[in-house]
């Protein structure tokens, strides 16, 4: 199975600023995903990061607020733009390889916006 790392592991940011979260996979994966999770709550899919094309966003999430890049099959970034306290959450990256049905998750980035 793939091993996924995320940077930073946590951050405290000021309102109105932006934070870019990096997701690195130790092997090539077909699909990469970004989720948001309130502590102790379920996961909400933000978008699917497509290699070489624009990300596919879920209802309620827009590119201007959560721009995503995926320059290759092992790396993706999620930017949380113009942050407000409501953006405080855990952001999780996951990947899925075509040889496996399950998704593998990174450890998450815990974001606090003041």
């Amino acid at each position, binding site marked *: *199975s793939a091993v*996924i790392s995320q940077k930073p592991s946590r951050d405290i940011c000021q309102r109105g600023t932006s934070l870019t979260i990096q997701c690195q996979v130790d092997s090539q994966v077909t*699909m990469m995903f970004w989720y948001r999770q309130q502590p*102790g*709550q*379920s*996961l909400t*899919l933000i978008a*699917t990061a497509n290699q070489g094309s624009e990300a596919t966003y879920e209802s309620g999430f827009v590119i201007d607020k959560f721009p995503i890049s995926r320059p290759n099959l092992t790396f993706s970034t999620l930017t949380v733009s113009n942050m407000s306290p409501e953006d405080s959450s855990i952001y*999780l990256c*996951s990947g*899925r390889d075509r040889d496996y*049905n*399950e*998704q*593998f*998750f*990174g*450890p*998450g980035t*815990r974001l606090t916006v003041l």
Partner: protein
Amino acid sequence: AQSVAQPEDQVNVAEGNPLTVKCTYSVSGNPYLFWYVQYPNRGLQFLLKYITGDNLVKGSYGFEAEFNKSQTSFHLKKPSALVSDSALYFCAVSSYNFNKFYFGSGTKLNVKP
């Protein structure tokens, strides 16, 4: 539309006793079902999955799950609980092409010594 329900927010069990964490599903088409575990301040870890075949699926850390088509359930079980099993457990169902996962609300498992 695909969805899963975890009816219990929390399950409490004594160490050494059997545990069950419940999950029911609603899908159009064949169900592809998964269980994940999340320890504090960690990402989700894959436990097991049902795609096809035997209704009893064995996974990591001694966990197993039983797929029951008539009851549309996929309950997670373990014969003898450990204190270290205390964590948040998520059931999930996948789209037909495994490109989208729908997660349940999660069940917090507390195993007491």
